[in-house]
């Protein structure tokens, strides 16, 4: 799977009913494509953080940001360039595992720092988290064993911290 060019936006919104619908509705109405979306409350209970990837070809980034900014419940928007951020995504997958292949799958899980969550007679459920590319790699390596069910969370991201001695990047 080749990732399409995209922008990652971190959007702080008021933690109120219907805010996600406003954001999603805006994207649908303006023809902006969402590649992935993750939303959860922050340490400040009044705010939620939405991390979303926008297809860079569907609309100019400036338009997306300016339109988002018009939503009354959107408090701030920040673009995170890939090089300047740490991105993580969680994958949970149930994969076919016979006694013969189970060892091979366990090897992959170890290599990718994953975990086994559940074991059945002919299936394994494993989880793995990492940067989106690493999650893609893990998923494609598991595919030949037969993926029964799979769920990815969509990525979350925070700005990368400065190198030692430098300033800490702040949001």
């Amino acid at each position, binding site marked *: 799977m080749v990732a399409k060019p995209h922008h990652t936006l971190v959007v702080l919104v008021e933690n109120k009913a219907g805010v996600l619908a406003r954001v999603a509705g805006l994207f649908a109405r303006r023809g902006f494509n969402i590649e992935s979306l993750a939303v959860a409350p922050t340490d400040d209970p009044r705010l939620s953080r939405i991390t979303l990837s926008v297809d860079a070809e569907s609309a100019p980034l400036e*338009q997306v940001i300016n339109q988002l900014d018009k939503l009354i419940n959107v408090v701030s928007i920040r673009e995170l360039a890939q090089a300047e951020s740490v991105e993580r995504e969680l994958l949970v997958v149930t994969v076919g595992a016979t006694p013969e292949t189970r060892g091979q799958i366990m090897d992959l899980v170890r290599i990718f720092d994953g975990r086994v969550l559940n074991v059945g007679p002919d299936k394994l459920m494993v989880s793995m988290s990492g940067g989106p590319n690493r999650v893609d790699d893990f998923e494609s390596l598991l595919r030949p064993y037969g993926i029964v069910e799979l769920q990815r969370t969509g990525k979350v991201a925070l700005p990368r911290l400065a190198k030692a001695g430098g300033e800490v990047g702040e949001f």
Partner: protein
Amino acid sequence: MNLNGGQALMRSLERQGVEIVFGLPGGAILPAYDPLIDSTIRHVLVRHEQGAGHMAQGYAQATGRPGVAIVTSGPGATNIVTPLCDAYMDSVPLVVITGQVPYAAIGTDAFQECDTTGITMSVTKHNFLVSDAQELPQVIHDAFHIATTGRPGPVLVDIPKCIVDPRNPRSALEWYEPDGHDLPGYRPRTEPDPAAVAAAAELICAARRPVIYSGGGILKSRAADALLRFAELVQIPVVTTLMNRGGFPDDHPLCLGMPGMHGNYSAVTSMQRADLLITLGARFDDRVTGKVGAFAPDAKIIHMDIDPAELHKVRHADVAIAADCRAGIEALIVAVDARGGAEAQTDRRQWHETIADWQQRYPLVYEPSEPGEALKPQFVLEQLRDATPDDTVVCAGVGQHQMWASQYWRFNHPYTWINSGGLGTMGYAVPAAIGAKAGRPDRMVWAVDGDGCFQMTAQELVTANTERIPIKVAILNNAYLGMVRQWQEMFYDERYSEVYLSPDLPDYKGWAEAMGCEAMRIENPTEVRPAIEKANEIDDRSVVIDFRIDTQEKVFPMVPAGASNDDIVLDPSQQPPPR
């Protein structure tokens, strides 16, 4: 002090200075109508909720104050979606209160329940669902703040019945006067960036073929005076879009009038040939630009708008200024003055001569009718224009009559032209005129309407007569959905599909009389002026004149949809200009 939600709603509206609301009660909003009896606020009882919304728009556009409408849940709310969308497109400040089923019943498909906030999310600047009576004073305070600041727009407040029903314990609240707003994501920008203003002033002074492209933002920010001073300082011609007719006086020598699909040749072509467009409160709408790729190809763009999302949206701006138009133009005047003002302007005599030549060679024209022939709509509008006071408020529906009205009226005062620009809502004229008259009872208010439009909202004339808000309606009756007919004639090989309406079914005169109006039917050119003069004398009820106009008449000039503005089609009597 303990109040119930209904009382708090009325008190909150009074506190905002609301003097009039347009509405129609129903089950869910019913308890809020009880304290209305004891309020200082005047309520205008409409015949259809769409009328309430358009009246609130007309009121807002005539007065500059927010318009307020109150309707019930379900169909009441859905009937006002069109005015909300219209107000959103044209940036009209509205506060619309909708009833909702009791909180406990939300989501159960209760009687007259609909997801009002969900339905209106994309056609409002913001909306609220009140979940606690105690919030109500603050929510109303916030709603007016959001509707009237920044880029104005409609705000909807959905109030469950339990919150306004005194028999329900959920309606109890401790009254308070809201102070300030907790809206961390709402920070409208108004003051321009000085560096951008300086860059704009440089471009302006150096431009050889500049045009000021002025839009509805001029009227919204009360910037007509500033625009006049700015244009006179730099001596640059001004086009006024459909949303800014009256924002710069038509009789001013620098005024070029309306650009766009049915704009006059000089306005359209001066923009095409310009080397600089000074865009003030306009948004490069497709009806102005024609084919975007061919629009004003040589022009640098200065774009001033209070909404940053409009900047670079359609056309890249060389200088973008996110600001309120009045503050921004005032800053431009200072910056141009600092560079030497009028003296610092490039010699533009040739440009002015070129434009004057276009104006002389390609004016708006029509062929007058011969005696015994049907009336020409342009003639009717000229007569109406000349027989009414200079500050008459003119409201229009949407279609040919709207374009003729915009073309042939002379707008010399701001807030005298009220129409549906962005959404193009047929039926806008009659209710908008009632709202305008309610807000400006001192002014004469004429609705110029089409026969198709009139049939969509005419029932509000009953409201006008019952409520003693007398308006005057000129129906330009060509028995067709005329603009569609024009397109079918020009672009669909004269295949007329579903556009014929009949000139006398309904009998407009009889219908208007049944609604309590004075009514006339006029077919002869010599009768036009006396009929208008008679209408002007009547002030105790509304007047409707059914003008029988030429069915064949088309609106010219015209830039066909999707074509370049260079391909403007003139009146058949005019020689096309050399290309």
